[in-house]
């Protein structure tokens, strides 16, 4: 326990990175996933195939490979993240958002979006047939049917699976650590390296923080689910 108290600032900073990765990639994946889902249920065959292709390719590729692509491979073809380094000063130290961080956010976003897309698509298919038909009957175009009638209901039906996808993202942020972001996993690895005798304490401590974070996300999801439920 002393170890955690001694390194409390470094650990807090590491989890700040974790949460930041989670929030940024979470928002990004929701946006990209929604666009992909709309493509997959839309009327244009080419876009449907493109969306399906994206999902099949990304879903069957390990996250590590996706992140290696953006972190190591993409810069070789001038797909560089010319990201202006941002330094966010916090009470526990500076959070540095650099190219590595950006690449990992993009990798996590691209990977998670495939799962968001599938969750949403099943939600769209779960919306009662009559809803879309009625919307079409009063003359709404596809975009109107989607944004005003189907998607709002689909989101509601999709909250539990979407929460699962986002919790997976939270845990997947550790992969960004393996490729060079100073987040929680890397901090734990470093602490284990320097204090091999405290292996059990360190693992259980870090694991429990993750358990708490996961609980927070599922709590928020449950609250959200309750609030938007049709009673």
């Amino acid at each position, binding site marked *: 326990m002393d170890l955690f108290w001694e390194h409390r600032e470094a650990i807090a900073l590491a989890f700040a990175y974790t949460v930041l990765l989670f929030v940024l990639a979470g928002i990004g994946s929701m946006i990209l996933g929604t666009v992909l889902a709309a493509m997959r249920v839309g009327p244009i065959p080419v876009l449907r195939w493109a969306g399906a292709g994206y999902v*099949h390719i990304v879903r*069957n590729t390990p996250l590590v490979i996706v992140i290696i692509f953006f972190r190591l491979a993409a810069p*070789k073809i001038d797909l560089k993240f010319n990201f202006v380094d941002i330094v966010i000063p916090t009470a526990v130290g500076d959070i540095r958002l650099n190219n590595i961080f950006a690449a990992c956010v993009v990798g996590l976003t691209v990977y998670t979006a495939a799962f968001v897309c599938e969750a949403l698509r099943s939600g769209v298919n779960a919306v009662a047939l009559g809803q879309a038909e009625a919307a*079409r009957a009063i003359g709404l175009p596809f975009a109107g049917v989607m944004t005003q009638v189907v998607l709002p209901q689909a989101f509601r039906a999709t909250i539990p699976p979407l929460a699962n996808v986002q919790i997976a993202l939270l845990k997947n942020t550790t992969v960004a650590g393996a490729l060079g972001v100073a987040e929680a996993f890397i901090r734990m690895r470093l602490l*284990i390296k320097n204090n091999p005798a405290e292996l059990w304490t360190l693992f259980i401590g870090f694991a429990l923080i993750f358990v708490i974070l*996961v609980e927070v996300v599922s709590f928020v999801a449950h609250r959200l689910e309750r609030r938007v439920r049709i009673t």
Partner: protein
Amino acid sequence: MSGSVLFDVPGPRAVARQRVYTVAAAVLLAGAVAYAVIRLEQNGQFEYQKWEPFVSPVYIEALLVDGVLETLKMAFSAILLAVGFGVLLGVGKLSEHWWVRRPSWALVEFWRAVPVLLSMIFIWNLLGTDKESSPYWAVVLALMLYNGAVLAEVFRAGVNAVPKGQVEAAYAVGLRKTQVMLAIQLPQAVKIMLPALISQCVVALKDTALGYVVLAPGLTYVARLIYSNADFAQNQIPTVFVVALIYIVLNLILTAVATWVQKKFVGEKKVLEVPMVGEADPKQLPTL
């Protein structure tokens, strides 16, 4: 059309309009692909030197033997162990005794919420980072714990999905609790679980790539050897393409097997749904 709920059969004007959209979208996508190919070409990513490892027998062998074979070995040992662990925890969670139920519940919740990488590094250090076999076992055991926790929920859902009358009938003919579980519930639950189990194999297979951090053998390790080899002039892009392709093919084969198994043994259209990533909330699992 695709039978989507969002459309009915379009009339002639709608068909014409959709055709225009289709062509426009196709042109746009083709343009994007062409642009990507041109940029790759301009950057010399199609140079023979960069692709050399993927046509030379030594590296093909390395990819297939040290990569694919090791990856499959890890994935299957992990899944086999995970099934055992999962059934144990699943039965534990269904137990009538609180002192079995509570710890099983806690274990499932814990291993499901902990990132696999964390447990991998932990087990690696526990086994000793200097031993040659420990990376392999770190990957296998970490995946066992995580997938086991997920499968415990799947198993529980499977058992709950067995019609209640089956259990009642078994009790009525005088079977005891253990016998009911072993002879009646377990076989049926396994049948219901089967497709979900195979889907979980896809997850395990993909997650073996995390062995990257403990220097475990497997495809990702071979990939690293190839792209860090100076002879191939920094061929990260070709390597990522080839390795991703191998993973995709492996997983598509597994998915095809799952579909076949489902048709053959289960005969139901709907797979027992498990989140791909495995954060199954017991309340959200379908009870069928």
